[in-house]
């Protein structure tokens, strides 16, 4: 065990040395200053998920850290005024851009941009006397510009929550609510009105059960597929955008979505048959009827979506 600790410690030091050598501007940093940052980054991204990660993986991870950005941030954290000036000069435009994206108006964006530097520097003081800012959380894994945008976005959300005191619920709560509503079996809004009240009630019951089964099926999907569904259907992203979040081309995202459709249908049918006591023909008929009613019901909302989907399917080949 101690041998492993020694080995990892040695890897950290060697990695910090190489990192410092890669930096074009070392900002007067020493290896021992960088070792804690390197150690924190490796713990966060590697050892947390795999404590027995091989040395090659750790070395590779350290060698892919953003040396210049990390040295700049560490120098700022160390109170290097020149580094701080350099940081503001280089990234003030990025911060303002991110603030404008996160704010609804120019005034709010300017306030946000100004406050971000204070957040980075830190208004509070740590035990060692240095300011406790957000700079300590930059690992160097991603770009500094991207990290600053993320910090601005999170700060904007925090400020919005504080100001509006009206926070949108998380998806889990939504699904729980939907499932609960499905158990009421009267809240399915997808069905159109039927002339026969008996048929109308029956259709509503079927639709509600199907809705509940679908929500459960989505929750049972893999995280990657569920994220794609959330991005595409719930967040309203295009396949190109959703694919970018997942790191895949839109054609790949489209293929995945097609596969997800098939798997979801099978899962919903299985749930309806096993838990609802439905028969196979009943599920098939219910799918058709519900989809038919939905098509007419949400047609105004999806005025442009079919064209988009068709185009994306064509791209997917």
């Amino acid at each position, binding site marked *: 065990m101690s041998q492993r600790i020694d080995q990892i410690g040695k890897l950290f030091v060697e990695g910090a040395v190489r990192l410092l050598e890669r930096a074009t501007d070392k900002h007067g940093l020493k290896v021992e200053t960088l070792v804690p940052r390197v150690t924190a980054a490796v713990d966060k*991204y590697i050892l947390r*998920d795999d404590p027995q990660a091989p040395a090659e993986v750790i070395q590779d991870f350290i060698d892919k850290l953003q040396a210049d950005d990390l040295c700049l941030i560490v120098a700022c954290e160390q109170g290097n005024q020149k580094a701080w000036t350099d940081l503001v000069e280089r990234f003030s435009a990025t911060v303002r851009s991110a603030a404008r*994206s996160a704010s609804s108006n120019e005034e709010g964006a300017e306030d946000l941009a100004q406050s971000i530097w204070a957040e980075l520097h830190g208004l509070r003081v740590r035990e060692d006397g240095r300011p406790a800012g957000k700079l300590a959380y930059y690992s160097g*894994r*991603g*770009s500094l510009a*991207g*990290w600053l*945008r*993320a*910090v601005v*976005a999170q700060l904007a959300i*925090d400020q919005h*929550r504080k100001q*509006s*005191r*009206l*926070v*949108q*619920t*998380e*998806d*889990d*709560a*939504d699904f729980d609510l939907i499932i609960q509503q499905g158990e009421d079996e009267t809240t399915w*809004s*997808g069905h159109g009105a039927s002339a026969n009240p008996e048929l109308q009630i029956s259709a509503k019951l079927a639709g509600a059960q199907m*809705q509940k089964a*679908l929500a459960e099926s*989505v929750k049972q999907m893999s*995280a990657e597929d*569920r*994220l794609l*569904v*959330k*991005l595409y*259907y*719930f967040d309203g*992203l295009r396949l190109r*955008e959703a*694919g*970018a*979040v997942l*790191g895949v*081309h*839109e054609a*790949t995202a489209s293929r995945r979505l*097609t596969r997800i*459709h*098939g798997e979801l*249908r099978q899962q*919903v049918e299985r749930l309806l048959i096993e838990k609802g006591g439905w028969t196979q023909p009943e599920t098939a008929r219910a799918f*058709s009827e519900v*989809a038919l009613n939905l098509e007419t019901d*949400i047609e105004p*909302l*999806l005025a442009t*979506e079919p064209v988009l989907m068709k185009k994306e*399917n064509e791209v997917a*080949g």
Partner: protein
Amino acid sequence: MKQANNNEVDLLLRALARQRSSAAGQSGSDGGDEKSISSDHLDADELNSFAEGLAPAPARARYTEHLSECAACRRIVVGLTQAAGIANRLEAPEQTRGAGFWQRLSEFLSPRVLGYAIPALVLTAVIGIGFVALRQREGSQLVAQNDRPGEAPAVAQNKTDSGQGSVVQPQPTVQNGQTGPTTEAPKERNTLEDEKLRAGQGLQKPDAKVAKVESSKDSGQPADVASAAGSRPYAPEPKAAEAPPPPPIINPEKSGELAKERSERREDQPRDQNEEVRVQTDDVRGPNRSRSNTAQPMSQRGAGVGSGRGLSADKNKKNADVETRSVMGRHFTRAGDAWVDTAYEYSQATVRVARGSDQFRALVADEPALRTIAAQLDGVVIVVWKNRAYRIQ
């Protein structure tokens, strides 16, 4: 069917998303949560590493799990992804690496692909069948025309076909109103006409290429025959008289065009003004003309010089036998007992005129030059005069 199923699920998911939005609106009751977002969610570094695709696989899976449930973090990641232009870097679609043969085959045979492929294949097949049928139809028309006895235009129409077809296809042999496709007849005609052509050209010897073609034609190879026939110039063209026999280059288009031109010219000629107008027979044109005096222009017929005999012997014989004379500006070639105008084509109908007959007297009265020609050339004379061919005998 599969696409319809997908559409049904797609509609259901959209409805579910719509339901989620309304549910979120109804349940906006936890606005009192003032905890910093970073304490419960992914921090900025994790969000950024995910958005830039730099998170290690295990960490990425963990973040994906969170993002699939957390709308707030998802929004940030989406914004980071768009700001970083990640979509623009993902130009190449992800290939199905390691996909098996059957998977690739199933993808290839998917309805989406076949939806385009099948119409394209059908269209291609229809075009191909139509092309073949059209070609066959043309061929059948040719045969039908060949079967008509005693029609000179049919002969001319044969020439309008491609050069290959005009040679390879059995040529109509018009013989006293009887037709019969013979394979040897064109060769014999070619021999005769070649003799005549060379006589008009000052007995120029065929070059080696022509000899090669002729010898290959003797061996009965249609391709060589076609190439030879397609390459020969027509007799009336002055270039043919000046230049040696052309090399055996396949030029069916040119041959076809010339043949068409000739047929049009021939159609302009009066055919049946005189009851003595007949299709020329073969009985008096020397040994090489028997049963074969149709269809081919003289220059093309020259392609068959070597048919049925040895090349060297043929050359010697031709050099010895061919005799030419010029009367009244017309050039005549001795062919057996007859003097044949070099402008005469054997497909051309002739008007038979017997010397001393009333018709002969009337003719020479109208055309005194013909009297001079008939007087200076003994025996049978075939002369082309004002686009009409007269056989004076």
